């Protein structure tokens, strides 16, 4: 219960953060050349200035920046993100359509990177200086230094074009009319390459942290205590080192949630996945700033949510948190 309270308190503390972000971005976007109406007019193939003025009044764009900001924040509280100029739908609807793909991609990548990172990190730490460590660390470094989009492209070349094992892009076979399990399998097939692409970079980071964390923990006093009790190496790792070594990993997941979302922009573009990232890219290219701002807002919410969950998990793992240290 204390843990939940503490996490909730941190959640409450992130509300002002969120407001600062949005106010800052809103003002920033005031600097952008062209507004929603310009984008709309361009979409309609031009129009006369009178219509533009009328539209500006309609959207409240003739008000001073401060008043616009107040209106915008007021609407945000009601989760009204405004109208997307390009898609002709409310921004909230557009985002809701795209969100599941991104969540699926992120969830799959995060699980792969996290679990893989733990296993490889422990293996490397157990065999430090020997060939498994060298091999794992070398691979980690290579993945770490590889731009993810390039990795994705090369994956397409190898697995989609040359070997023909996996589809080159898209979320599912459009028009195949799959349903039920077949559809799930089809989507899974489509997500293999994007998930690997997004996960490998993070896997590299996680395995390095896990390796360092294990080495650190294995040198601590209580590990020596456990050995002095007569516990074997496996027992020491499973019962004493692992859980302690996981703490920095869990923190890292929270810290990197935003980075992972950023990464999905690129990966979704490479694999033509209809997700939030691709939407962000499209709205930048088409200057649909309302949608862009909405995406930023939703991403921030997502990151804050992930951090809330991370706080809860951390509190479960570490009893010292509930005591306030």
């Amino acid at each position, binding site marked *: 219960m204390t843990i939940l309270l503490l996490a909730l308190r941190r959640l409450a503390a992130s509300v002002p953060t969120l407001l600062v972000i949005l106010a800052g971005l809103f003002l920033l976007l005031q600097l952008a050349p062209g507004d929603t109406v310009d984008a709309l007019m361009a979409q309609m193939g031009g129009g006369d200035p009178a219509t533009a003025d009328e539209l500006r009044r309609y959207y409240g764009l003739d008000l001073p920046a401060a008043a616009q900001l107040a209106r915008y924040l007021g609407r945000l509280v009601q989760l009204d993100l405004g109208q997307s100029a390009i898609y002709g739908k409310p921004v909230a609807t557009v985002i809701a359509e795209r969100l599941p793909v991104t969540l699926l991609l992120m969830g799959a990548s995060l699980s792969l990177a996290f679990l893989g990172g733990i296993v490889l990190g422990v293996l490397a730490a157990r065999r430090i200086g020997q060939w498994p460590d060298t091999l794992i660390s070398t691979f980690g470094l290579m993945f770490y230094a590889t731009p993810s989009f390039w990795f994705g492209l090369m994956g397409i070349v190898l697995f989609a074009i040359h070997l023909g094992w996996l589809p080159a892009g898209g979320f599912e076979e459009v028009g195949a009319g799959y349903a039920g399990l077949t559809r799930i399998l089809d989507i899974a097939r489509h997500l293999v390459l994007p998930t690997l692409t997004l996960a490998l970079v993070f896997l590299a980071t996680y395995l390095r942290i896990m390796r360092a964390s294990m080495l650190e923990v294995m040198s*601590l*006093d*209580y590990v*020596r*205590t*456990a*050995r*002095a*009790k*007569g*516990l*074997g190496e496996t*027992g020491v790792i499973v*019962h*004493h080192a692992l*859980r*302690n070594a996981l703490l920095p990993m869990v923190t890292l997941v929270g810290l990197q949630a935003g980075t992972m979302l950023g990464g999905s922009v690129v990966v979704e573009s490479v694999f033509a996945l209809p997700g939030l990232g691709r939407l962000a890219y499209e709205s930048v290219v088409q200057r649909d700033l309302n949608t862009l701002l909405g995406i930023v807002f939703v991403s921030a919410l997502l990151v804050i949510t992930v951090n809330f969950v991370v706080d809860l998990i951390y509190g479960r*793992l*570490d*009893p*010292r948190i509930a*005591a*306030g*240290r």
Partner: protein
Amino acid sequence: MSGLLSIENLSVRLPPGADRSHALTGVSLAVAKNEILCVVGESGSGKSVLANTVMRLLPPGVRPDAGAVLFRGRDLVGVPEAEMRRLRGREIGMIFQEPMTALNPLRRAGDQIAETFRIHTTLRAREIREKALALLAEVRMPDPVAALRAYPHELSGGQRQRVMIAMALALEPALLIADEPTTALDVTTQGRILALIREIQARRGMGVLFITHDFGVVAEIADRVAVMQSGRLVEEGPADAVLNRPRAPYTRALIAAVPPLLPRARSGTAAPAILTLEGVSKTYRKGGGLIPGRARVTHAVRQVSLSLPRGTTLGIVGESGSGKSTLARCIVRLLDPDTGSIRLGDTDLAALSRRAMRGQAGRVQMVFQDPFASLNPRRRAGELVAQGPMLQGVSRRDALAKARELFGLVGLDPAAMDRLPHEFSGGQRQRIGLARALAMEPEVLVADEPVSALDVSVQAQVLALLDSLRDRLGLSMLFITHDLRVAGQICDRIAVMKDGAVVEAGPTAEVFAAPQAAYTRALLDAVPGRAWIPGRPHVPAA
């Protein structure tokens, strides 16, 4: 010998690049059933390596290259790892120095005790729980049922050490190895833990290999004593013989360096006060943040009033958390006291703004505890000492000349002024810190545990230096310490602090001879080896 453990001609090699080739060279020792062997030595003597060699818990790269460790006749050096694991915890138990870090912070105390049973026995969970409870009762844990469910951070240092002992004793090992088990504890807790170890050892007839650096502890607990220096055995024999009739010159020197628990007669306490504290309080608020009322309030210093006569040394004595360090930091204004006045001559230091205090910096200076953290690792020794005068506007040339002079005064070679702190030993660093403070020509010197991180022989030298400086320069000194032996050695008057308040103050001799407060009595009683007077000097002049 009816040896339980017999170490024969043991040598342990260090990895290349260490400061010497062997951690241990040709050490032979024996521990019999039902006896406590104390291995005593200063840092670097190899005493901890000895303990870890028996347990086969040496760090990678450190390994025995000659000799044998015979446990019940079997040489542990060559025993396979799996067999060694069966011995650890069951036949040989071990407790460590740092109770704060020796327990896994994420698992309950009961679970960690139970683990010993789970590793070595096939007992059921219920039986294990009962045994763990019985063990906690045996180590006199207050409320054993609650302690079973407690996480380490919920226990005090002494309680954690009790859990460690319970864990080590769970399967009634024939041999207990204790590596400085009370060093990190407060003196009253230390007294109780030592009594506990002694009592359980006697009841079970265990052999104990007890590693320590403290001759007081040796006098308290040892049946036999082995003295080590630089990896070699210097002297070994029954406790009484080694403590009171040491043969080896090194042992004699070590014992001579131990301050006797006797006040030295002092004069000058009638001199006018140079520093007067009145009603000084300091309160910490922690946590809570924006929500008031949730903050935890700690009254670190409560209404302390004291005075320091000119040219004398006032000792502030207390255990950890007594507020003695907070008080010292209030006086030099590293902390701002909440209430009260701190009068130095005509100036109330407590009332000065931070900026104004900077102008008064020369008048009161501080010497710190940790010889490694108290010097900026990137500045040369001479510069460190010259820094203060330079801040006051003295030219670099003059300041360095003064530093050179001070180096001589504190017993350092002025040629070493160009060296970086890491090139000095702990005692030398403390001398640099002292020179840095003296360079400001302070009226009052505040010394915060200046010798507690030093080996006993170095400690004696630094104490002698402080003593002679006080006489030569007419220094007035506030000396913060947890160690009553040290306080008796150097202080004219002492004030005993507990929970932020002064419980008793007076001339050292009076306080030692006839303590008024119950806490002072408890503190004096808990000093390990209080009955032993090093070197058996004259009868106490109480």
